[in-house]
């Protein structure tokens, strides 16, 4: 049992009646039609009156409870899982809960952001306190009514009880709203959880399968115009001139003009990444009319900076000058040990740029008037973009209102909200509500891509096949994927980690499990080769190293817990019955740590007609307490498929600054027939507070896949995507 001070984030737990303008449930004009849960549950009647107990929840006089979900939903299930945590401490009947997406409100909520697999991690205590403080005021109200001490009142499933007397939450909600929130609040013992840790289906599920408007792209408003853009066809090109006459004359077209997302003197924040600052915009009455007019545009572009090609990138990656390489960590004397080693293994790995390709392309709705701006749409960083919008549109921060829709995927792309700004600028100019829509081509060729990477590995073994030295030199265009203090740092006496970057004008950004999405897979493929060279079972070899990292760690800053690392390896060994696979099944293993969580995989692969078929993937996951097992399992399955898909098929390449891939006919995403036939997920039982889950399942499986492909083909592949070359049985 934990006792927490309500001082931290106290604003959110105080009664909202103190807030100006009735506070919370502000202007759900469009989203009002998207209330979740109601028709899926036994919430048959809406209450006559609502009582707001704090920033996160309100209770109706009939006992129906609305819980606000503060964070952006990109498919990671926070809209179900975060309210579950509130409901747990509130002791409410989950079937009577309605979930609403909270608007951006920096006064009430902290960190309304989807990124870094942190929503649940960072929200855990606040969400629990929100539920617990509300439960406390309900108990206070019942205590007053019954004239008994609060401490004697128990709660269960929305009912307060004292020696046989019962009251529903709705019956005391009015009274509770006037009670004072205590200075300290007692949280439940984790052993008493009855909602957290149990499977709860997606609160938006019914709306999704019946096609209700939920996404940014679905927004329609009275008088709304549609806008699309024509941006430079190549990174390094800029606008020279354009002739809009023909486009303007097309039916339904309101205007054609050029604009800048960010003026040259604008001070950009990290979330303001946008490669093409100036482009041409077409505005009209419907998507098709705008699309048709866009084809009639005559735009001239000119070279503004270097026009880069993938061929040049590859040549550069082969000649990294020593002058750009930095030592990130050094233990022992690796140079000397490498010289005297019995065996040295050296390998190089590369991977291309990747485009996020959220299935819902970038888009945003904006309605900007002289004194305020309303935004609705898919954004992972509303807090940051509120500031950008205020600066860009010249409106005070409090006049910027951002409402978040459910998102058709994020994967990091929607951290960079230039499209929100663009919608705002267009609406301001048109003096009308506007929905800006990117076509797939616009979206894919105006990316904030996963950088291209290279890693060089070197390992030394002594006569007894002990790993005595390890060297990793990793970098990228234009960002390094190195984590110097991660495994096997700490497990090897002589260790050297080096890092470098090469500049580029191709815009990059965070992509699901940034940096880890490359380094995990290649490190785990390399470790496999080292294990093989040492003549050891790949799991035993890793466990030996973990043992050393646990009992006699080298260096001080190792950022992982060797015991939990070993835990997922042991679990996957047990569940996959490692060592007793069927004939014809080729297996690979891997394990990795990121976002505070640990994942190990075994990939089972068969060759059919000389093509690899992934029969099954075993996943062992340690992410602390699993809040919603059915959704967590779904996320792990999806992350596994996603990791495999990108490693096997996906690449973004360039010729003279122009992306070679513009749509899904040339950019390969994994398809149903290529996905693993089965994904089996196991969680380590844990009472550690929840750690990340959106990203950790993605990176490691790439290593297990590479290792299984080697077993199947007899050949190692060192560059992604693996299926760029065909596989032959060795």
């Amino acid at each position, binding site marked *: 049992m934990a006792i927490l001070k309500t001082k931290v984030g106290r604003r959110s737990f105080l009664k909202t009646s103190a807030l100006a303008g009735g506070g919370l449930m502000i202007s759900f004009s469009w989203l009002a039609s998207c209330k979740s849960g109601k028709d899926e549950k036994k919430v048959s009647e809406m209450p006559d009156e609502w009582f707001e107990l704090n920033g996160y929840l309100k209770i109706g006089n009939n006992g129906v409870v609305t819980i606000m979900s503060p964070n952006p939903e*990109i*498919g*990671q*299930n926070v809209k179900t899982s975060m309210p579950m945590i509130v409901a747990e401490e509130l002791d409410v009947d989950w079937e009577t809960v309605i979930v609403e997406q909270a608007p951006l409100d920096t006064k009430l909520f902290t960190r309304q952001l989807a990124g870094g697999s942190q929503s649940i991690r960072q929200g855990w205590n606040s969400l629990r306190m929100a539920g617990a403080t509300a439960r406390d005021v309900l108990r206070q109200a019942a205590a007053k009514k019954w004239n008994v001490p609060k401490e004697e009142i128990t709660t269960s499933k929305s009912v307060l009880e004292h020696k046989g007397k019962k009251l529903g939450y709705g019956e005391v909600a009015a009274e509770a709203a006037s009670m004072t929130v205590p200075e300290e609040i007692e949280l439940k013992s984790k052993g008493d959880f009855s909602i957290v840790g149990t*499977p709860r*289906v*997606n609160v*938006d*599920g*019914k709306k*999704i*399968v*019946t*096609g*209700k*408007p*939920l*996404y940014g*792209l*679905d927004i*329609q408003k009275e008088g709304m115009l*549609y806008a699309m853009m024509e941006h430079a066809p190549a990174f390094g090109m800029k606008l020279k001139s354009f002739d809009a006459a023909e486009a303007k004359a097309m*039916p339904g077209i309101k205007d054609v003009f050029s604009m800048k997302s960010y003026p040259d003197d604008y001070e950009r924040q990290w979330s303001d990444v946008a490669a093409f600052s100036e482009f041409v915009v077409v505005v009209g009455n*419907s*998507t*098709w*009319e705008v699309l*048709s007019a866009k084809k009639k545009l005559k735009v001239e572009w000119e070279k503004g900076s270097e026009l880069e090609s993938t061929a040049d990138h590859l040549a550069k990656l082969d000649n990294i000058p020593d002058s750009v390489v930095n030592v990130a960590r050094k233990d022992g004397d690796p140079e000397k040990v490498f010289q005297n080693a019995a065996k040295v293994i050296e390998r190089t790995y590369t991977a291309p740029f990747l485009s996020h*390709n*959220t*299935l*819902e*392309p970038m888009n945003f709705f904006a309605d900007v008037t002289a004194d305020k701006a309303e935004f609705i749409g898919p954004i992972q960083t509303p807090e940051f973009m509120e500031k950008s919008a205020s600066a860009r549109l010249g409106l005070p921060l409090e006049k910027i209102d951002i409402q978040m829709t459910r*998102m*058709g*995927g*994020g994967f990091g792309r929607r951290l960079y909200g230039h499209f929100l700004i663009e919608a705002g600028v267009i609406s301001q100019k048109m003096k009308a509500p506007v929905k800006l829509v990117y*076509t*797939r081509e616009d979206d894919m060729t105006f990316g904030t891509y996963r950088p291209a990477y290279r890693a060089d590995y070197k390992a030394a073994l002594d006569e007894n096949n002990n790993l005595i030295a390890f060297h990793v030199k990793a970098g990228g265009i234009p960002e390094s994927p190195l984590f110097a203090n991660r495994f096997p740092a700490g497990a090897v006496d002589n260790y050297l980690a080096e890092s470098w970057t090469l500049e580029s004008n191709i815009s990059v950004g965070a992509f699901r499990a940034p940096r880890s999405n490359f380094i995990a897979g290649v490190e785990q493929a390399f470790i496999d080769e080292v294990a093989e060279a040492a003549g050891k079972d790949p799991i035993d070899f890793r466990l030996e190293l973990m043992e050393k990292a646990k009992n006699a760690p080298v260096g001080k800053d190792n950022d992982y817990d060797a015991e939990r690392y070993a835990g997922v390896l042991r679990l996957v060994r047990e569940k996959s019955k490692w060592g007793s696979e069927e004939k014809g099944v080729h297996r690979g293993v891997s394990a990795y740590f990121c976002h505070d969580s640990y994942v190990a995989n075994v990939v089972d692969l068969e060759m059919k007609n000389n093509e690899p078929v992934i029969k099954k993937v075993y996943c062992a996951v340690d992410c602390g307490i699993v809040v919603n097992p*059915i959704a967590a399992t*779904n*996320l792990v*399955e*999806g992350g596994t*498929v*996603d990791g495999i*898909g990108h490693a096997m098929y996906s690449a973004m390449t360039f010729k003279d600054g122009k992306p070679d891939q513009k*749509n*899904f*006919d040339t950019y390969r*995403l*994994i*398809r*149903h*027939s*290529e*996905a*693993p*036939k*089965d994904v089996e997920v196991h969680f380590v039982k844990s009472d550690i507070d929840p750690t990340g889950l959106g990203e950790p399942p993605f990176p490691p499986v790439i290593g297990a896949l590479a290792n299984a492909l080697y077993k199947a083909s007899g050949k190692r592949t060192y560059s992604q995507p693996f299926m760029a070359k065909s596989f032959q049985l060795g």
Partner: protein
Amino acid sequence: MAVFKLKINGKSREVDVDPFTPLLWVLRDHVGLVGTKFGCGIAQCGACTVHVDGKAVRSCQMPVQLIGEGEVTTIEGLSEEGDHPVQKAWLEQDVPQCGYCQAGQIMSATALLKENPNPTDEEIETAMSGNICRCGTYTRIKRAIKSAAQNQNA
């Protein structure tokens, strides 16, 4: 511009649009049925899948002038109450992550089951390979189709 009389989800609808307008945008912009999604516009992702006379069609590549008397069914018209066996199976298996592809997946799956009420795993994989799920829910989609087939045939 031209006037087209369409039959959508059992109702008759009149729209005045360019004859080349893809059905996708007629549905989304002119009829207000936004359940059918835009993903690629070139018949590669399946997000825009609807039924025309019971057959799965990529609405982003279907000009409105070609529909004629065809009966269009969208995700909104698949069932009155959202209780089509495929929709029910989708909820039961808790398939969606972001959910954006799922309307298209469901429309492809219902068309498949109509033609082949008891598909094998391989038949499901092949039939569903025109529908991309960027979140990677393929294993669940397969489970849901199998469970819908079972319930439907029971």
